[in-house]
């Protein structure tokens, strides 16, 4: 009696099916940052009123988290706050010291930080706030969710690296830049996704056959 135990019902029928079932690969290090650096000078498209509306929303969203950060800098609401504390216990606690001593009801405008690392912390926090407002899972679709999940995973990898002890300053700067860039990408992605949804389009590219 022939041994049929090796015959799996899930076995590919031919080579095309076997190759097609192989998982897709991605680079070990994200290549976008390198590509973006080599892009010729970009001009941003501002032709669409809807994009202007999105930009206005995002600008508003940047201001709100900034104010919140000034008033309640210890609130551990965002991922960035956690990460900052783990790598920079001293800088994480500094922003509220001055404003608490001022004792005024109207918050004084704070000078912009000059330390590049501090600037990156601030940008990261702002973008986290924007992202929270821009993200809307109600308009999520398959491919878009996958792209967003990839970016989230990328962010998680950066955060994991930021939690490593004894990071050099240069390494911290590189990681925080990567974090800000990734967050910027996510914000742009979510904004566009919403824009497309409003216009009856979506990110899901329908797979088509090559005959």
């Amino acid at each position, binding site marked *: 009696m022939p041994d049929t135990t*090796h*015959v*799996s019902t*899930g*076995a*590919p*029928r*031919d*080579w*095309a*099916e*076997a*190759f*097609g*079932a*192989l*998982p*897709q*690969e*991605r*680079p*070990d*290090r994200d*290549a*976008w940052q*390198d*590509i*973006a650096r*080599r*892009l*010729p000078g*970009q*001009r*941003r*498209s501002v*032709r669409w009123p809807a994009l202007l509306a999105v930009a206005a929303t995002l600008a508003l969203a940047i201001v709100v988290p900034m104010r919140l950060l000034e008033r309640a800098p210890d609130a551990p609401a965002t991922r960035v706050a956690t990460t900052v504390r783990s790598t920079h216990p001293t800088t994480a606690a500094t922003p509220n010291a001055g404003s608490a001593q001022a004792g005024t009801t109207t918050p004084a405008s704070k000078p912009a930080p000059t330390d590049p690392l501090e600037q990156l912390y601030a940008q990261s926090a702002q973008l986290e706030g924007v992202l929270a407002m821009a993200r809307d899972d109600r308009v999520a679709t398959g*491919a878009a969710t996958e*792209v967003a999940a*990839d*970016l989230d995973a990328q962010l998680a990898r950066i955060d994991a690296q930021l939690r490593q002890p004894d990071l050099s300053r240069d390494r911290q700067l590189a990681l925080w830049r990567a974090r800000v860039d990734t967050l910027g*990408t996510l914000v*742009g*992605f979510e904004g*566009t996704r919403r824009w*497309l949804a409003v*216009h009856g*389009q*979506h*990110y899901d*590219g*329908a*797979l*088509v*056959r*090559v*005959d």
Partner: protein
Amino acid sequence: MTAPAPTPAAPTPARSSFAIDVPEALLARARGGDRAAFEQLYRWFERPVFTLALRIGGDREEARDVLQDTMLKIFGRIGEFRGDNGRGDGSPFWGWVRQIAVNEALMRLRRDRRTAQEIGVEDMTVFVEDHAPLPPAAADAAILQRALAALPATTRSVLWLYHAEGYTHDEIATLMQRTASFSKSQLARGTKKLRTMLEVTEHEHA
């Protein structure tokens, strides 16, 4: 009277991982130089381009370079893309992307003579189509990937372009600057070698 030979099942049409419909609105933004649109296009085609480059060249760092160069060419020339005109009778954007990616990957392969190896074929007129059932090990992604990686790069490229991307022998010949006979012979010998490797693996694990 002998029974008629069983006809092989119709082969599965290749289903390219590049086959993604890109919204015209996104392409319009990219043509306008919108950086965010570029990045979204990158995210969509990152895996297909990298996977193709990895299958052809067999090296992850090289594949990353191919990915970068491909994307920069796409962004630099996106204004030239006039394929899909909205009526469905033009070339899709993904086909254009794939063409650039394949050219980039094969160009690197030709440049690096150390890896641009192929299975030696004495008689390029003998082509045996392989319609036999696949070894069960072909269903194991890790084993199949290892076997593919063990093939000479040029041979592997022919197999991948033919089976995974659905190119014809004539198209492969043009892409690789060789003849259709070369493509057919590499496919036949490469498939045979791949099958042998998978069967050996199967026996080792039995």
